[in-house]
């Protein structure tokens, strides 16, 4: 009998800590995410889920512990370097760039766009234009994929709440991420759109990307995630298949309720 191959762990969080004043938001938290999985992160409000996401994405600096993205240690790196290593995040409350169009929001995510360097604009204007055209084609594909195609030239501020959620995901995809952290991707999105959003995420996973998402919608968590991690008071209290987590007494006690 062959031993099962160990799954490849693309993201590892090891004993990470973060306090704000006297509050330990993330307290000795360890977890790991399999490559090409959709992993859910659940837990009561104030469990430290969003803080953990901010630590992983580099928006907060951990007080201690280590975070690994594949073979690179990323804790303490600035967010833009982490994006270049292949990890990005979206927000629970959309951070759309209000006074820019939907297409411009996406174009900002373009990775290694030479036109973003002053010198290239002056010295290599042709290369800048060519790359910009290529990225624009890519951006339009992603807009089609996320059902935002018709809104390309609208200001981001004029989108509905649900559309802004889609925009967050679309912009994140422009950075060509290996791992995407989604903070409540379907909150405030109508059920039909939520279902097609999750279908899209499933499709992207099959194409090789990894998703780690915070979600309170149990339908999404139980039916769409391969694995569920539960946080409570800054640390993980359960980790397993949706069914096993659902049956875990500690989880029922702290989060799901009897």
């Amino acid at each position, binding site marked *: 009998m062959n031993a099962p191959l160990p799954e490849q762990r693309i993201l590892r969080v090891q004993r990470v800590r973060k306090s704000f004043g006297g509050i330990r938001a993330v307290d000795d938290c360890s977890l790991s995410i399999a490559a090409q999985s959709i992993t859910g992160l659940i837990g009561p409000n104030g469990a430290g889920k969003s803080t953990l996401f901010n630590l992983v994405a580099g928006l907060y600096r951990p007080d201690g512990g280590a975070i690994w993205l594949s073979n690179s240690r990323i804790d303490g790196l600035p967010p833009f370097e982490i994006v270049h290593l292949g990890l990005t995040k979206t927000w629970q409350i959309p951070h759309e760039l209000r006074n820019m169009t939907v297409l411009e929001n996406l174009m*900002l995510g373009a990775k290694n766009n030479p036109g973003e360097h002053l010198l290239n604009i002056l010295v290599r204007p042709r290369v800048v234009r060519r790359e910009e055209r290529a990225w624009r084609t890519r951006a339009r594909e992603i807009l089609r994929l996320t059902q935002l195609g018709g809104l390309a*030239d609208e200001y981001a501020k004029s989108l509905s709440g649900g559309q802004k959620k889609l925009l967050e995901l679309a912009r994140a995809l422009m950075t060509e991420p290996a791992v995407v952290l989604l903070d409540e991707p379907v909150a405030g999105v109508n059920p039909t759109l939520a279902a097609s959003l999750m279908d899209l995420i499933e499709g992207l996973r099959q194409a090789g990307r990894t998703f780690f998402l915070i979600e309170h919608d149990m339908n999404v968590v139980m039916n769409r995630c391969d694995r569920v991690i539960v946080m409570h008071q800054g640390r993980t209290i359960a980790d397993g298949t949706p069914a096993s987590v659902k049956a875990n007494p500690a989880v029922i006690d702290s989060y799901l309720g009897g």
Partner: protein
Amino acid sequence: MAFDPLFLINVGFYISFAIVFALLAIGFNLQWGYTGLFNAGIAGFFLIGAYTAAIAITAPSPPATGYPGHLGGYQLPVAVGAVLAMVVAGSAAALIALPTLRLRADYLAIATLAFAEVVRTIAINLEPITAGTIGIVGIPRLLEFSGPNKPYLTTATIVGVGAAIVLALLVALHFIVESPWGRVLRGVRDDEEATMAVGKNAFRYKLQVFAIGGALMGLAGWFSVMALPYLEPAGSFAPAVTFSIWVMVIVGGAGNLKGSIVGAFVVYGLEWGSVQLKDLAPPELKDSIPYIRLMLVGVLLIVLIIYRPDGILREKKRVLR
């Protein structure tokens, strides 16, 4: 009333100082209108540019009684003065930016306001370099003319060169800010965190645009001593100058380069126009003109914020094809 030929020179003076303010406003617009960096020390970078230019291009100060003299006597060409003014003011902006751009916007405003006041106090007190409150005199003009038409030719040169500079800048800066680089600036303005989360080093962009804005304010300083070949630190670089530039950018339209030019001409036009109309005002109101002018600016601002909050020329939507 007979036509006064001096009126033409007066109009030329208005245009040249409107250009000075337009350059300052464009610099501030890049920093705030495009990138969201609230610079409250515009006057400081303006001062640095003006003194750098004056010291670089002026002849040794004449040994007059009571005149303390100033650093200088380099007699460099006026164009070199312009470049030096931009380099020194731009570097000063980069230096002040390094520790302060990591701060929140309100702290940046406080730090830059303090910086400008420190610079002004130094200019007032550091007599061996700046000649103190007496100021620097005998600054050479762009071109020296002689003969009866000298004042007209001098004024025409200043206006012509100033207009050419503004037009050239408009074209060059449009090319730069409507590029992917400029898009990152607007991303930082709208949401710095989100811009970082899609892989942009926000600090680098803020530093670059702050230095470029500072350099343009330095250029304004150089042009101001071209327009008026005399330099004194106390009034010309007071915080009120900074506040006027804010008004010009808001009135003209933040995030629109042409708006800064329109804002400068309109707001400075109110000031200049009210001085011209002084003779028409009833005698009992004459002394109140400066205050009425301030009230007019205030009313303009209020009306505009109510009816056209994005300014006269609002920021354009970028439709990418």
